[in-house]
């Protein structure tokens, strides 16, 4: 069975700072996909970034980037130049056939 661990239940950062959310996973599969989803307060879950395990290059989407370490089974999310609108619950997720989510990290961005 696949498991996803997010070790930081809550994090705080000030606007314009950089923050890194950690995620580790456990699997015996070689081909899989990793995702970070964001759920703002009272709003819908949306995709932040995706990484295919067969790609060595780390994915980036504007201010969001990942550090994918396949051997270590680690998939951290870096948010640069944090904005108030980044305040949300962030879920790391892993997929072979169905998505397995971590328990989430609540990120609070303050002025």
């Amino acid at each position, binding site marked *: 069975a696949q498991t996803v661990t997010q070790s930081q239940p809550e994090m705080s950062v000030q606007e314009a700072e950089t923050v890194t959310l950690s995620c580790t996973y456990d699997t015996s599969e070689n081909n899989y996909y990793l*995702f970070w989803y964001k759920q703002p307060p009272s709003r*819908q*879950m949306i*995709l932040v970034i995706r990484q295919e395990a067969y790609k060595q290059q780390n994915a980036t989407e504007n201010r969001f980037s990942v550090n994918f370490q396949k051997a270590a089974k680690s998939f951290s999310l870096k948010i640069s130049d944090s904005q108030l609108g980044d305040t949300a619950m962030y*879920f790391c997720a892993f*997929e072979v056939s*169905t998505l397995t*989510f971590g328990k*989430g990290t609540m990120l609070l961005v303050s002025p």
Partner: protein
Amino acid sequence: DVKVTQSSRYLVKRTGEKVFLECVQDMDHENMFWYRQDPGLGLRLIYFSYDVKMKEKGDIPEGYSVSREKKERFSLILESASTNQTSMYLCASRPTFRGRLYEQYFGPGTRLTVT
């Protein structure tokens, strides 16, 4: 934009009632999913469907059933609601894998309270 809608944002039901949660997507996606979200537990997969009239059990199917009579609609049914089914229910959809794995698109959620 993909739109996934759920029939209710908030729902209060009594123990033992039969409860229907409806989900509709407007992008002709083959795959649809039902999750429940609980604090400290993340999202857990209840049921999913790869196509019309097809259904597969997820990680926590006990106490739930589903129906998919039309491609755009996926219903979650609580046959006899219990207090431990009080939760946030999220529906999601996505296209079938065609050389790439698409992300899932989520609805706004239904917060169900069973008293």
